[in-house]
């Protein structure tokens, strides 16, 4: 028993305002000759009117904000340019995706928006989420070093602090270095993606550079995939730049060459 063309079935769509012009015309013609349909239409209109967008506000838990801020600190933004192909997708739900294929939005967003995904940052963001969410499970962040695990709480503090800021620079030879810092905490963390591992007898060293002086901020450990993040040792001061130099294994007390990465805070 199918009544696909039964005008009565257009009543909900009419009330919800989702009928096509042809359907609207068909339903209005039906309304004109059916008093019972008019009663029903009115009831449905009242139901639709109650479905206003103004749902009562609900206060989110505090940790949701921390999670979001942590994710945001490690997520690149879109340029204002409106020629990129995702504009239509933002404005209307195309529904083209198979619902079964829908993954976490963050993943989809990264796949769409980040031409060169900063994988390490994504991994770090996931780590932060885990820590901030209070659900630390050892070894969850595939590839995360033990140092990264140990430093995650500090990273979470930096990225979720109200004055957290970030700046990125390209790395010579391809890749990106991003500094995230909080002046209030006097802490910063460097993310690198696409940094070659140093020669066997060399090491990368981090520096806080202010004026002509440079203070060592630790050895930067880089994974074989060229990605890493690390919280810098020491205290960051306003106006400090962060630099990375190539040093003899074990590190130096003063930088011995031109930095390969410099980021101005």
């Amino acid at each position, binding site marked *: 028993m199918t009544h696909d063309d039964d005008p009565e079935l257009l009543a909900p769509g009419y009330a919800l305002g989702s009928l096509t012009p042809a359907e609207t015309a068909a339903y209005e013609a039906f309304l004109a000759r059916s008093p019972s349909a008019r009663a029903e239409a009115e009831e449905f209109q009242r*139901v639709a009117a109650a479905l206003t967008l103004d*749902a009562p506000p609900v206060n*989110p838990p505090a940790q949701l904000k921390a999670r979001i801020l942590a994710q945001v600190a490690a997520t690149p933004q879109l340029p*204002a340019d409106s020629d990129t192909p995702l504009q239509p997708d*933002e404005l209307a739900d195309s529904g083209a995706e198979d619902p079964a294929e829908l993954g976490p939005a963050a993943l989809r967003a990264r796949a769409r928006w980040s031409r060169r995904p900063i994988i390490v940052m994504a991994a770090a963001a996931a780590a932060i989420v885990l820590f901030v969410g209070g659900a630390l499970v050892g070894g969850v962040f595939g590839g995360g070093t033990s140092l990264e695990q140990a430093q995650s709480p500090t990273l979470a503090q930096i990225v979720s602090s109200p004055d957290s800021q970030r700046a990125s620079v390209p790395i010579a030879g391809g890749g990106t270095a991003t500094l995230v810092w909080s002046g209030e905490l006097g802490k910063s963390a460097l993310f690198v993606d696409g940094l070659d591992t140093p020669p066997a007898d060399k090491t990368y060293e981090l520096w806080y550079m202010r004026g002509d002086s440079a203070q060592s901020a630790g050895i930067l450990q880089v994974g074989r995939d060229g990605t890493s993040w690390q919280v810098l040792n020491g205290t960051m001061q306003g106006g400090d730049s962060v630099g990375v130099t190539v040093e003899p294994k074990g590190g130096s007390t003063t930088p011995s060459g031109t930095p390969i990465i410099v980021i101005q805070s």
Partner: protein
Amino acid sequence: MTAGTGPELEGADAASAQLDALLHRVARGDQAAFGDLYDLTAPRVLGMVLRLVIDRAQSEEVTQEVFLEIWQSASRFDPNKGKAMTWILTMARRRAIDRIRASQAARDRDTRVGVRHFQGEYDDVAETAELRIEGGKVDAAMRELSDAQRLVISLAYYGGQSHSEIADNLGVPIGTVKTRLRDGMIRLRTVMGVTS
């Protein structure tokens, strides 16, 4: 439901201008502005998402997705085309609908492999009574719908989709869409106690 008086509207305009300004700063990577924007808008986003998605944990996840999208696409917000709050809620609505659609797809898959989700009559009655006491008629009513019904109503009303668009999106016959819409609206009418 939104009977605005003069002073309220003025207040709303000021709040709207404030959101515009914050979004403008967010577009330039200002994370402090993003935090302020979150404080001002998150309760409304979560409230709306919760109405559509119902499940609290999932609603919080959707809210997180919404704010990540706000962060990423803040530069695309054009104050000449509409209010910031509308822009944000539109995004929230779309993501909430995506989420129900995904759970509905999962439900359909489960059903196909023979896993039935039963809702006992008694539970239903108990829940209805409890929700009525809590108030929030519309939210209670929305909870009374099956996922399938809530999804088509959300797509039609909050998503503005036609029957054929919904049918295409869900991969179901247009007649099924109409029936679900009608069953859902009848149920809402009953639960809300609407009579003419």
